[in-house]
């Protein structure tokens, strides 16, 4: 099949208007107001997600790569759920766990300890108040980053 190119406008090109719309600042304000209405429910579901991740801890002593596959899926959800409502270290810890699992999968060197530290830190970070604990949160997060970077197979070469 020869490559065929269509130059017509997409539905989005056709239907977007600028008259009567919102500027970025207005849209951000409107989104934040709407997100406030679901904050309590979303945070409750974040806590459930973290509990489900902690419940996987015993399975790390069995098939660790399969368990990490499930934890990766949970962590990816934590990033999206925590992002709008929590200090950046909470989604950051979940991203760090995803990265750690990727590194361990690439190198084939699995460490249950490194995963457990991430899970416990995630729980701790979530339990800390949003205000007044910035330095402590940053310290925990920087410790997680060190663990993850050490697992990077590229860093070992």
């Amino acid at each position, binding site marked *: 099949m020869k490559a065929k190119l269509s130059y017509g406008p997409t539905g989005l*090109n056709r239907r*977007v208007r600028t008259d009567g719309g919102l500027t970025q600042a207005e849209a951000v304000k409107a989104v934040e107001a709407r997100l406030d209405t679901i904050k309590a429910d979303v945070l409750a579901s974040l806590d459930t997600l973290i509990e489900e991740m902690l419940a996987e801890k015993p399975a790390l002593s069995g098939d660790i790569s399969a368990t990490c596959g499930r934890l*990766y899926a949970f962590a990816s959800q934590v990033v999206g759920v925590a992002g709008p409502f929590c200090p950046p270290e909470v989604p950051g810890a979940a991203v760090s766990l995803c990265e750690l699992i990727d590194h361990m999968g690439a190198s084939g060197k699995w460490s249950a300890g490194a995963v457990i530290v991430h899970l416990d830190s995630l729980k701790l970070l979530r339990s800390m108040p949003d205000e007044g604990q910035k330095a402590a949160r940053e310290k925990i997060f920087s410790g997680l980053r060190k663990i993850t970077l050490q697992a990077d197979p590229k860093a070992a070469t």
Partner: protein
Amino acid sequence: MTNLVAGPDSKLNLEKVNVLLVQHNKAELDILTQTMSGLGVWSTRKCVSAAEAQVLASTYEIDLMVVEANLPETDGYDLVRELRRNMNSASRQMAIIILSGYTMKQDVEKARDCGANFVLTKPITPGIMFDRILWLAKDRRPFVDCDSYSGPDRRFRKLGPPAGMPGRRRDDLPAEVGEATQPNLSQDAINTMLKPQKVSL
């Protein structure tokens, strides 16, 4: 569509845009729904699986789909590839944004090669979503269909294949810069352009 210009005063009216959200986590789906409503979208359809998304995209004319990369069973990348290949679907040329929790280089390549317009790393902020939709609304890349790919043209710079090779297009840029067609600027002219100027307010 009226002129869309990027900038702090750019306005975006999404009232007529049909959006499909595909996300298996309910809380994340709620966040996306509220984000779209806040951005001014009136028509949002939601689903939690790739199978449902296939049905909705075939039934309705969707303009923009926002899809999670890590869907259970069929993942977001495979879903996009299938939707782009479905010649009977009215939505196959829709704009598509893939959301990913942690994005490695190979994930970005996968998103590009499955036919998505963008991959966005979570957490999504409303400002970023606004900017990406504005960019997509202005994007006029052609839609490509060939044996191995269906989706927006992956070539942002129109360099095309090397000269002499088949497949070059009339508007492809030449590989060589070539001789200057106008005289060079004098050093004085360059200095004047770079000199800090007082601005009268």
